């Protein structure tokens, strides 16, 4: 009897086999508000629960800051969104139609999610200009790249981005020769030329001076609205200066969510994080 049941289960006529279902819907649908849905996510590494029943929604055009002590699962969460880590259970949707868990990293990047790593990661042997050229949105196929040249719109965007990130003078310099802060900026610039809908920014101001921090803050807030931005940051002053909504992660799940003031006065948050 149970075998019959399991056969019935696999041969259900009201749904198609998982591998038959269309993989990616090209169109990003944010008509219900959120651009990113993370639901009931669980990840464990060798028994350690890095993500524990995580539920998180990011609205289209929102600037969201995510804080939390070390090991709270911030980077793991980004790994799941960008396809680097597969969760044990749960769902991750980009808009209402794009299932992130069934896509590879390049597919997710092409769908419109850009990511800046915690440690600035740029192509050190390429010039600043070439770094941006490589990140530029457009056809990323092998054969196309043999004959690819940037079109006028892309070149204009590149010049504009060089201006925005303040590296116009260093355009022909190799990226390896930049200072730590400049590399951070270059990586943010590489995100911008990708034209992503959603930017995941991991510790953007680490190693920056106060002036640089202010400029980064301005840049990120100016991006919100047109793009959705998720910032993971340790620097509380910086978070306070840019965030209107903050999510606190703790032990792999959401501990509190709200404005900076609400979060700071939340008793549990004070216990685990801010109070120490």
């Amino acid at each position, binding site marked *: 009897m149970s075998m019959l049941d399991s056969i019935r289960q696999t041969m259900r006529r009201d749904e198609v086999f998982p591998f038959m279902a269309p993989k990616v819907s090209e169109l990003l649908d944010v008509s219900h508000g959120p651009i990113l849905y993370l639901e009931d996510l669980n990840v464990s590494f060798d028994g350690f629960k890095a993500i524990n029943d995580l539920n998180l929604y990011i609205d289209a055009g929102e600037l969201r800051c995510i804080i939390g002590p070390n090991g709270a699962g911030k980077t793991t969460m980004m790994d799941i969104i960008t396809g680097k880590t597969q969760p044990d259970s749960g769902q991750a949707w980009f808009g209402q139609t794009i299932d992130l868990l069934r896509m590879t990293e390049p597919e997710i990047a092409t769908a419109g999610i850009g990511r800046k790593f915690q440690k600035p*990661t740029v*192509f*050190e042997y390429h010039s600043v200009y070439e770094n941006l050229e*490589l990140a530029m949105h457009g056809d*990323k196929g*092998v054969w196309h790249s*043999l004959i690819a*040249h940037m079109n006028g719109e892309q070149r204009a965007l590149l010049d504009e981005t060089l201006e925005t990130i303040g590296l116009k003078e260093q355009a022909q310099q190799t990226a390896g020769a930049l200072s730590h802060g400049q590399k951070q900026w270059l990586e943010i610039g590489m995100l911008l030329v*990708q034209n992503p809908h959603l930017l995941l920014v991991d510790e953007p101001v680490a190693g920056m001076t106060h002036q640089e921090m202010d400029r980064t803050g301005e840049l990120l807030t100016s991006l919100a609205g047109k793009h959705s931005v998720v910032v993971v940051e340790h620097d509380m002053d910086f978070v306070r200066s840019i965030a209107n909504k903050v999510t606190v992660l703790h032990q792999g799940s959401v501990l509190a969510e709200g404005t900076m003031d609400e979060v700071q006065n939340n008793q549990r948050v004070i216990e685990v994080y801010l109070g120490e």
Partner: protein
Amino acid sequence: MILFRFFSNLLKDDRGGQAVLLILFLMTILVPVLNLWVPADHPLHMPTYLVTLMGKYLTYALLAVSVDLVWGYLGILSLGHGAFFALGGYAMGMYLMRQIGDRGVYGNPDLPDFMVFLNWKELPWFWQGFDMSWFAFMMVALAPGLLAFVFGWLAFRSRVTGVYLSIITQALTYALMLAFFRNEMGFGGNNGLTDFKEILGFNLQADSTRIGLFIASAIALAVGYLACRYIVLSKLGRIVVAIRDEESRARFLGYKVERYKVWIFTFSAILAGIAGALYVPQVGIINPGEFSPLNSIELVIWVAIGGRATLYGAVVGAILVNYAKTVFTGAMPDSWLFALGALFVLVTLYLPQGLAGIMRHFRKAEAS
């Protein structure tokens, strides 16, 4: 005119490449003159064995360029590139075997000698078609290319990188060597394929054929060099270097890293196969020893000595090391491997950028 602009663009900022191609061009003119038209007793006469030796070096140089493309630019240390070289060589060897016809020792018009010897009654299916030059020359590229594509697709898709990939490539060439040693494989067992008579109707022992093969090797090297140069200078080349330096960053920018690796690896294997195909008629034999892991390691050393990620460094390294090998194995046969090992250690310690690094250093000193 457009063509000229195209080539000068490729070689702009590549002084080493300009020098390599210029020397190649001069040699293709000088060598035939010195060998064919200068009388044999004249001091400037170039003996035929020297022509063949140089032709062999040129095929090694092409092989080294193919390794430099995957190692220097893509960052994949392949310790099995000799396998692709040997496969191309076998494809050519099979064609040359079929050209022997009934002039073999057994005089069998349908079967190569070793098959008669093994009492085989008919030609195995995989030997069909190799009597036609166009088919055989196609297989020269197709056989190594296909192997590289399948191997690369499996390895890169499972994200095997670094030293593990090197070990698998080493295992690949070793496995092929063992397989080709077996008589049942139908490739002549440990004797390999030899006793060739003619290629495309030209007698292989004739001086003029030797010259022809030398020129073909020079042209293959020049075209292979320019093709690699084109790849390196295109956006594809920049992506490939980006993958070498920061693979995950490239992935998060939307590049399907596996595909890039597979195609570059396959292209490189095809170049290696062509080099092998030109090598075989010049040395007159192909046997499973060409698959030996040692060969693949040696050729990585050529590239390291010449200088990685420069292309012309690979050419220089391959020719210099092989010239040294010819001299050393003649003078002190037992000491060559020690000399090679010492050379590799010295280069790794003091010249991490190889001979090309010295050139760059001098140019910088000159500029300042």
